[in-house]
């Protein structure tokens, strides 16, 4: 019964955080779809929709600040709210990377893609899955799951490297492909950064549950 009201407020913020996570996963998915079809209008829409994610971030942060100011959180509660703040800033940056991909779609203008996308959608799918899993691990306070998700980042890194090498061969064969090859490298770089940010979330889960800041 103790501090039920406060616990409810924490659950409420947690809920909003998960819904922000869903917004980010959707933005990533949409941006890669827009790239696939070089859909400029969709890309512009994704860029515009980023404002809503930013708002959500400030809204959650504001709630956290109020909880600090009014509820005097300590121990697990304190670590949880610190983690909320860290998670929202990571999620917000991920959304910026999705927006970055949408901007690259816009740069393509009317030119077609250099090649059909194979590994980029795979990377995006993995990154999206990592986000969902990490938020689930966050809610269930599952340290083992968090550690497993950190390992998944290696798969994304491997895909990034593969894409990079493949595009390098295109560029060496025909320098006229360089611009469009670099666009795709940028896209995969955005996805690689997203997965890195998921590992930040996972480290934060470990901190939240155990109190330990895990360095590398």
């Amino acid at each position, binding site marked *: 019964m103790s501090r039920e*009201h406060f616990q409810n407020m924490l659950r409420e913020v947690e809920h909003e955080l998960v819904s922000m996570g869903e917004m980010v996963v959707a933005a990533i998915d949409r941006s890669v779809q827009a790239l696939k079809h070089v859909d400029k209008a969709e890309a512009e829409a994704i860029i515009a929709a980023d404002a809503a994610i930013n708002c959500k971030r400030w809204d959650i942060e504001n709630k956290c600040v*109020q909880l600090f*100011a*009014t*509820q*005097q959180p300590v121990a697990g509660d304190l670590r949880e709210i610190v983690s909320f703040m860290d998670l929202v800033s990571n999620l917000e940056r991920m959304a910026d990377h999705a927006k970055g991909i949408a901007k690259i779609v816009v740069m393509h203008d009317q030119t077609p893609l250099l090649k059909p996308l194979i590994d980029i959608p795979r990377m995006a799918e993995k990154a999206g899955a990592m986000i969902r899993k990490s938020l689930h691990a966050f809610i269930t306070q599952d340290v083992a799951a968090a550690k497993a998700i950190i390992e998944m980042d290696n798969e994304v890194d491997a895909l990034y490297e593969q894409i990079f090498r493949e595009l390098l061969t295109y560029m060496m064969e025909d320098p006229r492909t360089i611009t469009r090859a670099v666009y795709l490298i940028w896209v995969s770089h955005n996805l690689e950064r997203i997965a890195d940010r998921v590992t930040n979330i996972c480290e934060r889960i470990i901190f939240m549950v155990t109190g330990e800041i895990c360095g590398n």
Partner: protein
Amino acid sequence: MSMSGIAIATQRLDLFYGDFQALTAIDLQVPEREVTALIGPSGCGKSTLLRVFNRMNDLIDGVRVSGRVLVGDEDIYAPGADLLRLREKVGMVFQRPNPFPLTVFDNIAFGLAVHKLAPRREYDMIVEQALRDVLLWDDLKDKLQRSALTLSLEQQQRLCIARVLPLKPQVLLMDEPCSALDPIATLHIEELMQKLKQEYTIVIVTHNMQQAARASDRTGFMYLGKLIEFGTTARIFTQPAQELTENYISGRFG
């Protein structure tokens, strides 16, 4: 209950104890079904203001009040205001739990009898509901004939809150309701306030700033008899508009 969603409103309220002005030009609007906390250093007038709301200050010699105080739509300082009726509408809980030296049951039944609020055959039901409302029923249902003085302090304070509820007050005034309680019991009473505010308007005076922060929706900061600042608790504790408020809540004085 008023149409405006305001349970208590004061307009240019001044209060004097003889020559001493204890409250100056207080304009305050207490929203219904929220917890409003009044904070400020000792002697700032917060308890005096609380006691204005059910005219408890009338008992003190040489008190003069000017300005208007509305509870619901009623001007409680208007000539001919019905004091008994006012104190039904505005219940009060004090710093030290003050149960009557009677049984648990009779502590609650007492007010029913005095105010002739219900036929005696309904007492069992009303007592049970009041005890349920303050989450005491499960602990005390087999101890209703015990003296209230044998209860723990927290239970006594809950009982004092339960005692007020059958009168169906619109407002509950609480003057430092937790200062005689340990920290855990304090949190329990704060939790109870969150539950009660679904049906009642609560005004609490506390010198415990953290309590105001945790448990209230609105906070008024008082200093030297003036209401310096009033706003949502979230705002007062994150972005107070007045430097004086900021200095007080961050512990720089008081």
